[in-house]
């Protein structure tokens, strides 16, 4: 009962959820990141999450597309959770190397005890310059669902830009990964 309600209540309690439509075609995220969308998306517009625009096709318990746009040196990606004794806030530093940025994201994903396994980390051209792409498998602690993820990142002028897509490894991720790749590799900065 509570797992279902918890998932649903998360939307009600953690900032008020409204879901807006993002039309296909060109979209500009946070005024700076220009992406070309093959189809429409649903955007999670909430007070608390303003820094990390989050989109979905099938719902947040299923798939999730996150944008990191111009995260500055010293910015807190996620605060230490209240009541979680062991945690420190997650902070981005401009001099972080790709493997450190991925490690930071991994910590963000695994705070609830989920298990993360990095499959690949390689250089790519992203946002008109040097960047990196990483692929991972996440086993969600709460319900045991296995999710595949792909992320694209680059640091420009000391700021972090990234696009990360995550969906169930069976049936969902394979369906959208090409679309995501096309969108990420053609993304540019304003």
């Amino acid at each position, binding site marked *: 009962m509570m797992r279902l309600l918890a998932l649903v209540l998360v939307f009600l309690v953690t900032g008020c959820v409204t879901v807006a439509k993002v039309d296909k075609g060109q979209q500009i995220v946070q005024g700076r990141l220009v992406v070309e969308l093959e189809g429409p998306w649903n955007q999670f517009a909430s007070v608390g999450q303003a820094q990390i625009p989050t989109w979905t096709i099938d719902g947040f318990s299923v798939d999730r597309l996150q944008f990191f746009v111009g995260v500055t040196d010293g910015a807190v990606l996620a605060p230490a959770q209240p009541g*979680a*004794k*062991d945690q420190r806030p997650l902070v981005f530093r401009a001099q972080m190397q790709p493997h450190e940025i991925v490690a930071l994201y991994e910590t963000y994903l*695994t705070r*609830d005890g989920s298990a993360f396994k990095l499959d*690949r980390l*390689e250089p790519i051209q992203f946002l008109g310059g040097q960047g990196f792409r990483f692929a991972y498998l996440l086993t969600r602690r709460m319900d*045991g669902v296995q999710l595949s993820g792909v992320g694209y990142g680059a640091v420009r002028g000391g700021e972090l830009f990234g696009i990360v897509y995550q969906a169930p490894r069976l049936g969902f991720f394979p369906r959208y990964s090409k679309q995501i790749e096309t969108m990420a590799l053609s993304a540019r900065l304003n």
Partner: protein
Amino acid sequence: MHGITRRGFLRWGCMHCALVAGAANAQQMQGLGDWAVPPRFAAPDPASDEGGLWATMAREEQRLRRSPFMIRDNELREYLQGIACKLGADHCPDIRVYAVRAAMFNASMAPNGMMQVWSGLLLRMENEAQLAAVLGHEIGHFLQRHSLERLRDARVRSAFGVFMAAFGLVGAVAQLGALAGQFAYSREQEREADRIGLELMSAAGYDTREASKVWANLLAEAAARPGSDSSSNSVLFATHPASPERRDMLAKLARPGGETREQAYQAQLRRLYPELLDDEVRRGQYDESMMLLDRLIDRQGRRSELLYFRGEVRRLRAQDDDLDRALVDLRAATDAEGGLPQAHRGLGLLYRARNDLPNARAAFVRYLELAPQAGDAGIIKTYLDEMKS
């Protein structure tokens, strides 16, 4: 008892019943007056509160069996089951042990016989006797039906209800610290379980002096954290808070003699090390991890794997002389017999951070030679190329 759990057990459990016959030795039970192992429990009336608890636990057991966090290594499962069976004697057929991948120090036993051992605990045991102390303690709670006693306290039951309804036993890692205290066993129950645990250990031929060391090690690790009230700060030990009183009582009650079976235990753990140590390092609690790794290296010697992880912890903690010491550990991890590819990567990253480019290049090249198919080979090549220009 839920039909499923019986069938599930029979699939791989009962071969261990044979071990029980030979294990009991002649030592008399002492320190517990006229306590004796109770006879096997009959399945409770489903309508009773005990029956309800069993059935609820059976559901959790089913969830656990389906969870990707249950460790499916058959050799480990049989090994753990064998220990529980030796300790549980006549109750062996009613006990089912599950190893769970979770980086916290935790072991528990539900009134229906389902026992969980979390990987954070497995990592911290030095030998089979220490694990037997923990499992024996949990079996003690089981034999004395302590959880039923606790759950009859309505206040505890409502806290338990929150726990079960919200998270179940499987999904709870992050919340465990907050909720575990609310339905903990009473001091008297803990003392009783400690004593019974020692008796079961002794009857199974284990060295009872090892029980106290479990708590001594825990206390040392908790104290490693900077900050005042270390043991309450660490979520690592939330379900089994370490106390000097228990350590001392167990030391007093222990008797010389018996086995530790250190080699057998370490042989099992070593197969799991890369994954478990990785989970440990990722906790980001470097002071605690350092204490643990120092202890493991002290016991097992300078094995490459252990040196690699300690080097990584130092590299990540990066305080005081950590980086210098990390270099020493990582270099030793590459020199030692069977040098690990990832130790070369760690060295490369370290040298690179210190701007020692020739050594960084050499380390990265070696990493790529040893592990050309590594997932991060692409980015390491990039780092290498950057250093060439």
